[in-house]
């Protein structure tokens, strides 16, 4: 498992290839990249700052990946999350999961993202044409996480 919290950008192709080549019985790699949008709630975004709880963040991410590994038959997972000040189209987060078959990798990757959104201690503040503001947590993110309790 790889979990990193960093200010630097990451190289998605490199990370995915590492996962791909780690095991010759890997058949599927599913990845998610989240990036800064230039638009949020109808306002133009010029900058996004990510704060986190150093010391807890990595532990929370590792706990989420461990949960995914216990629920699905996956080989490995990489989670990289950036902090600090970012601009529109900058990458924020990469989650990549490898497995023998695609179904498990898709589920585990989406599960990790849904839990990361609701349980990993990151907070976003954006600069828009309306001024600075903290981004509010979304009910849709809570709902996305709740789905995973059903099955």
């Amino acid at each position, binding site marked *: 498992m790889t979990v990193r919290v960093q200010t630097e950008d990451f190289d998605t192709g490199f990370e995915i290839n590492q996962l791909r080549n780690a095991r010759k019985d890997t058949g599927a790699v599913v990845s998610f990249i989240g990036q800064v949008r230039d638009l949020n709630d109808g306002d133009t975004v010029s900058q996004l700052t*990510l704060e*986190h709880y150093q010391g807890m963040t990595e532990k929370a991410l590792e706990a989420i990946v461990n949960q995914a590994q216990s629920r699905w038959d996956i080989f490995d997972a990489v989670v990289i999350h950036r902090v600090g000040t970012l601009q529109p189209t900058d990458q924020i987060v990469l989650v990549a999961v490898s497995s023998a078959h695609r179904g498990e990798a898709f589920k585990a990757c989406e599960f990790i993202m849904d839990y990361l959104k609701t*349980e990993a201690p990151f*907070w976003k503040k954006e600069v828009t044409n309306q001024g600075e503001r903290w981004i*509010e947590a979304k009910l849709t993110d809570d709902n996305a996480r709740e789905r995973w309790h059903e099955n």
Partner: protein
Amino acid sequence: MKIKILYFARLKETLKFSTEDLELQDDEFARTLTILKLKAYLAKRNDTWQQMLMGKLKVRGAINHELVDDNATIADGDEVAFFPPVTGG
């Protein structure tokens, strides 16, 4: 009883505190301290604290890097954190 408290995001910004060490008398209150009790205790400092910790804002708590609910018990030496619902990803 001594605990460390951390504040993040909107809480940190409004309270103008990122971290503090809190010492409490080793009495009944301290021995049965929960997240909710600690919030109420800190809220007495002034209106801003009251508003941020016991107001409309949803405040989540963590003890020693684990998300917990309002009834979680706090022990001597714990690191407690207060923050708004998370918004990473």
